[in-house]
């Protein structure tokens, strides 16, 4: 089997040790690191994302595949020292104030990384100011906010409003998600997109970044 294909297959099986080993072998064989990343690791995560979306697999398999992906990217990272890990865009994510339900947000982070984004995860209890400050400092293109509790939803609006006040609304895009969130709510508060699940969130982030680049 082609080594990149094997990396992808082992990643899908959640075999982190084998993925780490194979990634090393590929590097030794002078396979371009970019190809190992795109075709092996990200390729495998894309299939995981699709299978999760189709309800063929569940959260544990996604988490195991993500661990295997990190095992591979850890091997590759030193090779990208000069230019940094290639990423198709930078996204700041977090759950809003008072929200401790972070499995959905973590899953979106995994899927974004799996799709080749650089992800800055601010964790839980993130106030609007921190979302905006971090995105500004890191030059991120998108802020992704998750809420599971209905009471924490107003924080999402404050984040969008803060971007507006700072004149950053067109530079930094926003996407929101979580169980009580709807497309309608996203429109209402002025968020740029709504991700109804983790794979859909990744597609939407890609769309937002492409739209910004073509501006």
């Amino acid at each position, binding site marked *: 089997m082609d080594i990149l294909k094997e990396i992808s297959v082992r990643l899908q099986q*959640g075999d982190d040790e084998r993925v780490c080993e194979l990634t090393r072998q590929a590097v030794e064989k002078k396979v371009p690191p970019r190809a190992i990343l795109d075709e092996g690791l990200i390729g495998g995560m894309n299939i995981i994302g699709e299978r999760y979306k189709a*309800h063929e*697999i*569940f*959260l*544990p*398999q996604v*988490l*195991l595949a993500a*661990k295997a992906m990190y095992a591979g990217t850890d091997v590759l990272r030193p090779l990208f020292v000069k230019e940094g890990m290639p990423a198709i865009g930078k996204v700041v994510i977090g759950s809003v*104030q*008072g929200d*401790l339900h972070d*499995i959905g947000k973590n899953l979106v982070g995994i899927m974004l990384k799996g799709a080749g984004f650089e992800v800055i995860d601010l964790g*839980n*209890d993130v106030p609007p100011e921190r979302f905006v400050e971090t995105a500004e400092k890191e030059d991120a293109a998108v802020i992704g906010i998750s809420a599971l*509790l*209905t*009471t*924490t*939803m*107003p*924080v999402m*609006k404050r984040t969008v409003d803060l971007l507006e006040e700072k004149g950053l609304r067109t530079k930094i895009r926003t996407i929101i998600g979580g*169980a*009580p969130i*709807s497309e*309608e*709510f996203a429109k*209402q508060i002025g968020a740029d997109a709504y991700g109804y699940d983790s794979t859909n969130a990744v597609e939407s982030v890609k769309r937002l970044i492409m739209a910004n680049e073509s501006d």
Partner: protein
Amino acid sequence: MKNLLERVRDGEILVADGAMGTMLMDHGLRPGEPPESLNLTRPRVLEEIARLYLEAGADIVETNTFGASPLRLSSYALEDKTEEVNRNAVLAVKKAAKNRACVVASCGPSGKLLKPYGDTEPEDMYNSFQRQMKALISAGINAVSIETMTDLKEATLAIKAAKATSPSTPVMAAMTFDLTPKGFFTVMGTSIEEAARGLEEEGADIIGSNCGNGIENMVKIAKQFKKHSKLPIIIQSNAGIPEIKGDKPTWPETPEFMAEKAKELVSLGVSIIGGCCGTTPEHTRTLRKMVDLQR
């Protein structure tokens, strides 16, 4: 007085209370404040909420201890207060119940993921649940309600901890399912059949589902539990899935709608019927009336 399990086994249908979170907010819990912090600062509020559900006719009132396992409390740096948080919650509800209703201790997920897909050792999770169970059971409860579980392994660790602490305290165990094109599964991939088998094997006395669904899906879930287990079943339904109207989320299922559909739970032989997110004492009152009329 017969204990909860004896009443259920004798064929009685019990009504459990409704949502806690929204009630706490109505009583002054601020966004960002952990719900269990009120157990330390304002236990009177818990007594008042329990009283509202008791007046509405609940046979079972739950304690505000859903997130009171030390692992979960550690996210708020409150783990050192585990004993106090759990004890205060039990005492407040007992004061309101005055021995006329069952005081049931809520125990929710740890908020951590088990190895190998997560980072937490099963032993650490077990110890966390056991510390909570010791605090709850020594404060004097009638039963434990392990709820909103999505990982069967985590649920079984909680059951084991409860049974090890007190073999005679009845244990209810409920999981949360999502409807997929292939049927109902928890987010971790547990089917209703697997849940029924796994929870029963670990020694749960009453099993079922809470949260995640409105009453119509809950009827379907109850049917499957009945098919796969002979144990008494508990169902605690959300008032549907919240919709945004104006800037406030509203829950679509009215007390009347829920009670009407819950008649099917009675005919299926569900033993405990109650509410979860979005339900109010009005839902409890209407369920109470329905159950009494079905007798």
